[in-house]
């Protein structure tokens, strides 16, 4: 079995908070809260990321008129070692917590897991969140922020932001209808500065498996958004799909290319990070479903599961892509 179908999982509320660069992008009006700088009134970038998780979860609960004690379980993840932002946030909640890591594919993973708990009746309400911060991610995976090394044109910029979604069995206008877990896809690509291209085959694999197991095709979706493939990985994926003669017809887009204006903003090949697919899907994509402009949307969050140590030991980059489908419901 490749795809898990859900019948009773609905989006009760959702929220997105984003940093200053994202607040200048095309989706600025769709975010619930933005910050003036990347410190978010905190002393370190790590604390800033945690503050964004707090804000995102707080806004999501307030929108649904729920108290923290009404939430049965939380799923969350981020990019820092030991899921620092998520675990330190969960420390203060006193709610059962499951932390998950799939690099930038974490968003679909946590939502998929939360949906399973709701579907099976293990939880009445489940909260899922992810966060990422450009400064903490640079520090974790690359160089100090102010280090003057010339970055390659193929790199992407980590999105600063956090997104949260409250899932519940209570019908609402947006339904979570399916989840396709990804398989690790490693094609011996080892350029850590070009993760978009590295991840494209993982998205391609998940997309094909999802289509096969649900017997659907591009025409059944209003939009299929990949997570953070960058301009290069996105064109690579398009190429693979055209070779297979898939009727793509402008139904494919990429969250990392939607969150920034790549021609105006200085973000290299587009956005990436745990928050990238989360912020775009929780703001723009689900809003379109709620407004009735889209009936069915699939988000394929893509993650490059590289470790800086493994890359220095000349290993290739294992990649993964998890897909999640949202549908409009008349509930």
């Amino acid at each position: 079995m490749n795809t898990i179908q859900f019948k009773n999982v609905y989006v009760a509320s959702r929220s997105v908070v984003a940093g200053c660069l994202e607040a200048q992008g095309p989706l600025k009006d769709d975010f619930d809260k933005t910050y003036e700088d990347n410190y978010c009134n905190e002393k370190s970038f790590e604390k800033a990321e945690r503050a964004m998780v707090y804000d995102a979860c707080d806004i999501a609960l307030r929108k649904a008129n729920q108290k923290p004690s009404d939430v049965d379980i939380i799923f969350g993840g981020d990019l820092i070692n030991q899921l620092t932002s998520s675990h330190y946030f969960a420390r203060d909640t006193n709610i059962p917590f499951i932390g998950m890591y799939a690099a930038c594919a974490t968003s679909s993973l946590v939502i998929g897991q939360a949906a399973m708990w709701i579907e099976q009746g293990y939880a009445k309400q489940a909260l899922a969140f992810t966060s990422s911060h450009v400064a903490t991610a640079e520090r974790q995976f690359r160089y100090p922020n102010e280090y003057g090394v010339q970055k390659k044109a193929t790199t992407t910029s980590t999105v600063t932001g956090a997104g949260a979604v409250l899932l519940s069995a209570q019908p609402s206008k947006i339904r979570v209808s399916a989840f396709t877990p990804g398989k690790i896809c490693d094609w011996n690509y080892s350029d850590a500065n070009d993760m978009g291209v590295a991840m494209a085959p993982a998205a391609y694999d998940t997309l094909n498996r999802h289509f096969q197991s649900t017997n659907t095709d591009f025409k059944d979706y209003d939009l299929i958004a990949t997570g953070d493939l960058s301009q290069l990985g996105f064109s690579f994926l398009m190429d693979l799909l055209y070779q297979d003669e898939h009727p793509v017809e402008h139904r494919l887009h990429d969250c990392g290319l939607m969150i920034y204006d790549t021609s105006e903003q200085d973000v290299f090949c587009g956005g990436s990070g745990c928050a990238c697919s989360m912020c775009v899907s929780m703001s723009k994509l689900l809003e379109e479903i709620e407004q009735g402009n889209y009936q069915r949307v699939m988000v394929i969050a893509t993650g490059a599961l590289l470790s800086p140590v493994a890359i220095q030991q000349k290993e290739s980059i294992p990649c993964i892509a998890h897909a999640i489908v949202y549908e409009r419901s008349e509930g």
Partner: protein
Amino acid sequence: MDQKRLQDTAKAHVPKTHKGRNAIVAFVSGGIIGLIGQGLCDIFMQLLDIDQKSALPMVIVTIILITAITTGFGIYDKAAQYCGAGLFIPISGFANSLTSAAMEGKSEGPIYGIGSNMFKLAGSVLTYGIASAFFFGALRFILFGG
């Protein structure tokens, strides 16, 4: 999945690297740093009435100071993205690697943060600088007698 097909398809999506442009920008910007250094050297020699040998360390220290300040204000990394090796190869690159790593370590305190992280990037320059100085010094002593 067919790895060969993926590798062949991916080749078409690799962007062109602008090696010629990068080389010219690095040559010009590195040259400007050299020009500034020479200018500073002349100024120090004139103003302080010292010889070139005493003025050169002052030039180096001044460039390190300017780099540290511009790194702190977040200007240096933007300029370095444009200039590439032009700012990376001169002493400014070394100063920037120290300052940026020290800034990053600030949140973990003076010992475990700044102290142990400061030479994180510059460490390999020092290690191989000292090792090669020893090696070539020894070679010179053996071959030419000092």
